[in-house]
């Protein structure tokens, strides 16, 4: 029977369809892997980022395809809602990759409230801290839209949630 570590290493190959630079492990949506030695089944628990996230079904399908490609059979993907996903679960490596990709990573922890006026989001392109919010809602539920006042480029901010 395949080990839990091995399953996690395969999951590293499954990316978020909307932010392809992140694996689903970087994103922190994989909550657990349960291996049943007796029935030889693998259950992967994932949690949605936002309730209406349209990528969820695709992620579940991609997880199954990846497992089949690696020769792991009898895989099920279960969606759990609690505890609710938070950007605190995003890995440091994931945040670094986001920034390199041109999306500013979450700037604070979910339990420390910073009003939108006080939040400083550095521009992922020129690193300037002189930026302003255009819209709290962006191209996907998890992002908001910013503009850099120095290099004048618009950019996405992966908002703290």
């Amino acid at each position, binding site marked *: 029977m395949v080990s839990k570590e091995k399953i996690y290493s395969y999951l590293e190959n499954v990316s978020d369809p909307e932010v392809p630079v992140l694996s689903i492990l970087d994103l922190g949506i994989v909550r657990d892997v349960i291996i049943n030695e007796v029935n030889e089944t693998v259950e992967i628990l994932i949690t949605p980022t*936002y309730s*209406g996230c*349209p990528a969820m079904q695709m992620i579940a399908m991609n997880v199954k395809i990846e497992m089949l490609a690696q020769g792991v059979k009898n895989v099920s993907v279960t969606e759990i*809602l609690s505890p*609710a996903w938070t950007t605190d679960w995003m890995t440091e490596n994931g945040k670094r990759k986001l920034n390199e990709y041109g999306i500013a990573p979450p700037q604070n922890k979910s339990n420390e409230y910073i009003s939108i006026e006080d939040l400083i989001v550095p521009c992922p392109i020129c690193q300037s801290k002189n930026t302003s919010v255009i819209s709290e809602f962006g191209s996907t539920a998890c992002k908001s839209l910013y503009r850099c006042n120095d290099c004048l480029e618009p950019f996405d901010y992966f908002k703290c949630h």
Partner: protein
Amino acid sequence: MNNSLVEYIMHLADNSLIHGHRLSEWCGHGPILEVDIALSNIALDNIGAARSLYEYAAEIEGNGKTEDTYPYFRDVRQFKNSLLLELPNGNFADTIAKCLLFDTYQFYFYTALKNSTDNRLAAIAEKSLKEVTYHLRFSSEWVVRLGDGTDESKQKMQNAIAEHWEYAGELFAPSNIELEMIEQGIAPNLDALKDVWQQKIAETIEEATLSFPLSNEKGWFQSGGKKGIHTEYLGFILADLQYMQKTYPNSEW
């Protein structure tokens, strides 16, 4: 099987679905691109919450039911959403007024539902509350921006609040199912929510330099949705929402 619980879940799911569906009508029609995107995002969050709820109801009912059974194969009288949510979008101020009243309600409602004795509903509330916090900020900011804006935007915002106000009371008038659920600790006590709700709305209205709707003093409100007695608008929403499944039952992508 707990019939009352299914009925209660259906009421919550219908609220989210119909609100989400109405907001989705703004997609491609928003006054500016950012608002268009915001309203579509909020629509998606609501439809997502509705899916979680319908899925839960389907699991309790069993019998081959799925999350799709309820939105696509029920008729008007079986929908239990509040009337407020089926009203047409109207102008932008109308939609924002409806959002303010409902987002504020949902904010306090989900905060309380997190403590439900039903773990699944508590989990859905925990998830949705994080999203509703954004919705409420969006609608509150727009009420202030329009109210404290030009003469025209102020007038439109004031009219919109007055028109939608008389539909908001229904949110706090418990149906028999809700009373039963409150009794069991599954649903939050609506009476307790009403005061904080009204106070929060009053603060926003004041910040927007608007006045409180006159009908507030009379205390009368439109109702019926929770019992399945709807305005004529719901039938048109369902015609749009259900025509594909009604024409080709159980068709899949």
